[in-house]
């Protein structure tokens, strides 16, 4: 869950989603890294 993109902090995301803070941070990190990887591969195919 990346409500962080709405400006929510990891703590607020954790509260909102009822998940531990660490899990919220992990999900934010995973999502942004995944997005980064997707952008890089898109650049390479262009």
């Amino acid at each position, binding site marked *: 869950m990346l409500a962080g993109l709405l*400006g929510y902090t990891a703590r607020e995301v954790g*509260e*909102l*989603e*009822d998940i531990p803070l660490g899990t919220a941070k992990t999900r934010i990190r995973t*999502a942004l890294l995944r997005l980064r990887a997707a952008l890089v591969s898109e650049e390479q195919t262009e």
Partner: protein
Amino acid sequence: MSEMSVLTCAEVRELAPELALGILSGGERAEVVLHVNGCARCQAYVAELTEAADAIPQLVPEAEPPPGFEARVMHRLGEGERRSRRRWVATVAAVAAAAMIVSITVVRVIESGDATSNDVAAGPSTTLSAKPVAVPMELTAVPLPAGWAYVSNGRGVAVTVSYGMPSGGYAVQVKSPDGSAETLGTMHVEDNRGSWTGRSRRPIVTGSTISLIDVTGAAVCHGTVPTAL
């Protein structure tokens, strides 16, 4: 890498995504920035992530208000004597609504890649899914958007308003379809803006009404939870 920083490169890399998204708390942010200033590799890593974070708005498909939205707003506003001001207000409201649609789409886009881990066991048919459900909040006095509420897992609630709300404290209230009401907390509004996050003790279902109640007990804005998507 940097001897001056108390954080290691590994710790900085853990926090870098939040720095890139601009959601790191002040203390952590200061420590990460201190490290990054003295560590070229971490600096490059943060720059890459910031580039990705900055690209997010461009990835969102264009979202337009529904057909006739502007015409309906203008029609309801009428042709009163404060026309020019009202036109401006309508424009702000329309832009705010469009911006929120974009924001929600961003969440959906990002979420779609991580949906499987969020799936929960099927509950009663009226229970909302794990994905956040957007609830448009409308002013009670005039039919204009005040902001949005988001409900996730049927219990997590986030409310954000950006228009038409007098400054002050508001009780965040959820009324079930059966009429029972629960006050979740207090939200503060200043310069028309305010946000609140928290949880409901009882499940929020389709047909539940989320309201912001002012000190006189009046519901200044409200929204009804639609059918879960």
